[in-house]
């Protein structure tokens, strides 16, 4: 291995040095974030004059009245949401695979994934609350309600609305993951083999594809689990608030006036990491136990299972979920252009552009900030990914550490980890600058961009590039004009994904931006539960709109670009000919 590293260093010194520095650059924030969480948890933080290790933070954590309630809520909502999302996504694939429906659902996935989850959650609050759109649509003619009912349908104490919001967010992602892993299993052939032995498709899905698929999607499921256990913005919007989930409780402690709370919060953040680890283990154990008992059923020869109704219900629930997401997105612009909309009117009684005019300066400012941060962090991430992937293509030993580290930001709970980094930012006096916000955004955008680019980049037929060098004798020109130009579609997709990920970030902006740098997301989330619905509607609408537009652009541009370029060229040529003719 040393030999190969040496070779890599000799052949492409610049690339080698960049790759090594980028790996270190990724390692540094992870170490700082972890140290900034773990050390204060044991009462050590020289910056705040805590110089001796001790267990005081743990004692005050254990004494906190919200502790048990919020942990229970976190576990229930996190595990339940992950489980339900998986079941729904799998059921949908099982029921609709190879039908025309499936291909339209497949096309709907990317745009849904591009929309920040906070925007959908905000819409869900407008939709599902007792005075929300659904009750308005049904009142008073059906329900008889002249006033909103007193039941609790959002921010409920059991976190069920939070689970629903998580499920709405996670099912499309898991569906995407399942659909991209399935081809490895050749499901069509498996279904035919099954059919030839008299097994109807759903039984094959249940007995053959489900257990074979699980190992392929284990890691994405763990990401979903870690996300559901630690999400802050979604919970702030639609979760219960006394107590809230553990992550949100920690978030409040971290931002408390009393700096001593930070230590308690750090101890809590370490506990939260332990909770993620234990939940992941419990999840895996549950899977093992399930498989242990299920094994007996695989070989029992029964051609029909009672999972039929289960799968069908799951598939319908998925469609119901998407219906909720769609209505949630629809209600945002309605509120944005409302002047007066009182319960139980189905639509606003007075419309107006007043709110959007009044908000225009701030909306423009927020949108520009959001776009700038998203575009720059996505471009940086693409550049880093290209360097690392080129190095990986030449010598994958150099990038193995990078490959391992890249997933950490997705798995570590943001609350805790980011506050650990914040201490470093304040110490180095960059907190509240665009630089700090960009750095944190890049940390979260990079994994998605890198993973998206990986396979297509590495499978690029390098002979095109060799050919190009032979012709142009310029490696740089060949790289940009041939290799990157041919990889255009995936570069655009990675860019659009990066923008979507950046748009969705709440805590990184809040922590690095110090309230000086705000995006549509931080403003929308801060106002979601409390603020003026017209204002929130405006912000959430734009928050959903921009990633969607960039996504559509990314779909359309790479394919029409070549055509456009050719037309442009031929018109120019014709023009040039006309000009030269008279001289002749």
């Amino acid at each position: 291995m040393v030999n190969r590293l040496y070779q890599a260093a000799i052949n492409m010194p610049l690339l080698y040095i960049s790759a090594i520095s980028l790996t270190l650059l990724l390692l540094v924030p992870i170490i700082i974030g972890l140290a900034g969480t773990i050390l204060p948890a044991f009462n050590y933080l020289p910056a705040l004059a805590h110089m001796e290790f001790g267990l005081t933070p743990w004692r005050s954590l254990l004494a906190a009245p919200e502790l048990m309630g919020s942990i229970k809520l976190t576990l229930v909502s996190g595990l339940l949401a992950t489980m339900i999302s998986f079941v729904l996504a799998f059921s949908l694939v099982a029921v609709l695979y190879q039908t025309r429906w499936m291909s339209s659902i497949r096309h709907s996935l990317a745009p849904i994934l591009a929309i920040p989850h906070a925007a959908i959650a905000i819409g869900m609050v407008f939709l599902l609350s007792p005075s929300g759109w659904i009750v308005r649509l049904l009142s008073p003619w059906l329900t008889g309600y002249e006033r909103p009912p007193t039941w609790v349908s959002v921010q409920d104490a059991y976190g069920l609305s939070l689970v629903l919001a998580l499920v709405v967010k996670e099912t499309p992602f898991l569906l995407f993951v399942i659909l991209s892993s399935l081809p490895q299993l050749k499901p069509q052939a498996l279904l035919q083999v099954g059919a030839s032995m008299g097994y109807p498709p759903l039984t094959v899905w249940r007995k053959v594809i489900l257990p074979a698929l699980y190992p392929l999607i284990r890691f994405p499921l763990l990401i979903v689990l870690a996300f559901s256990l630690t999400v802050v913005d979604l919970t702030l919007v639609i979760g219960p608030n006394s107590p809230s989930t553990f992550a949100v409780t920690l978030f409040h402690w971290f931002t408390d006036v009393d700096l001593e709370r930070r230590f308690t919060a750090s101890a809590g953040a370490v506990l939260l990491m332990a909770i993620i680890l234990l939940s992941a283990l419990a999840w895996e154990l549950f899977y093992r136990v399930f498989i242990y008992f299920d094994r007996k059923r695989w070989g029992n020869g029964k051609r029909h299972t009672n999972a039929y109704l289960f799968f069908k219900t799951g598939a319908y629930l998925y469609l119901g979920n998407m219906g909720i997401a769609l209505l949630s997105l629809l209600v945002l612009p309605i509120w944005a252009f409302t002047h007066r909309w009182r319960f139980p009117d189905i639509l606003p009684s007075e419309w107006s552009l007043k709110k959007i005019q009044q908000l225009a300066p701030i909306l423009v400012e927020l949108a520009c900030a959001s776009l700038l941060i998203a575009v720059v962090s996505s471009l940086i991430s693409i550049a880093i990914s290209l360097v690392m992937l080129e190095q990986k293509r030449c010598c994958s030993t150099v990038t193995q550490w990078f490959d391992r580290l890249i997933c950490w930001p997705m798995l570590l709970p943001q609350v805790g980890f980011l506050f650990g980094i914040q201490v470093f930012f304040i110490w180095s006096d960059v907190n509240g600058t665009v630089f700090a916000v960009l750095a944190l955004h890049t940390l979260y955008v990079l994994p998605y961009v890198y993973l998206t680019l990986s396979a297509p980049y590495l499978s690029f037929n390098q002979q095109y590039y060799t050919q190009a060098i032979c012709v142009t004798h310029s490696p740089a020109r060949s790289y940009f004009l041939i290799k990157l130009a041919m990889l255009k579609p995936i570069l655009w997709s990675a860019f659009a994904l990066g923008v979507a990920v950046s748009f969705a970030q709440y805590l990184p902006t809040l922590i690095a931006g110090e309230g000086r740098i705000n995006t549509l997301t931080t403003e929308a989330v801060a106002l979601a539960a409390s603020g003026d619905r017209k204002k929130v509607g405006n912000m959430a609408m734009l928050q959903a709109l921009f990633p969607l537009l960039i996504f559509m652009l990314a779909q359309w541009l790479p394919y029409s670009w070549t055509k456009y370029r050719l037309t442009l060229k031929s018109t120019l040529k014709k023009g040039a000919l006309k000009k030269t003719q008279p001289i002749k």
Partner: protein
Amino acid sequence: MRTPLLDLKRCQIKINSTVLLDDFSFHVNNGEVLSIMGPSGCGKSTLLGYLSGTLSHDFIATGQIELDGKPIQQLNTIKRKVGILYQSPLLFPHMTNLENLLFATPSNKNTSHKERVEMAMGKLNELGLETKAHELPEVLSGGQQARIALLRALLAEPQYLLLDEPFSKLDPELRQSVRSFTLEQIQKANIPTVLVTHDMEDAQAMQSKIITLQTQN
């Protein structure tokens, strides 16, 4: 004279306006193999799809498939009782070898789980693989996997068998032994079999009738 067990009558298959097969008929007896040969694109696999009921709806097929004198072309794959083998053995990777066989073994009120296990173990015994019963298929060689795949197909008690180039991915030295094993099993099960291949040796080793299709222009 034996009754023709699998009978294809005046079959025509079209995609869009292109006719792939026209007025095509054959019959195959019990324990007998019919080989269909021809260059790629001649419609071999399409024909197999028609016979197994897995043909995509883009194709328009007319004609009649009779099994034991009864038309079956209206039935779906599940009801046709057809065994299919593909180029790869498609053993389920997460199930042990025994579980793969048990999966195919029919269950009914008269057979207990124990009997079904015995039946499947018997098959493994025939191959001398009883020690690998509780291991995953990945430990087996290609030839062993191919044999288990055949036994799995036959355990489901099919009334006819379709083989889609089942030997093409095997090493040449293994091919001969798998071919003769396959023929042996077909004769033992005594069911009509259709083999699609482009390798003349396959067809000859299976002692089959041969139909060669031409590319339609």
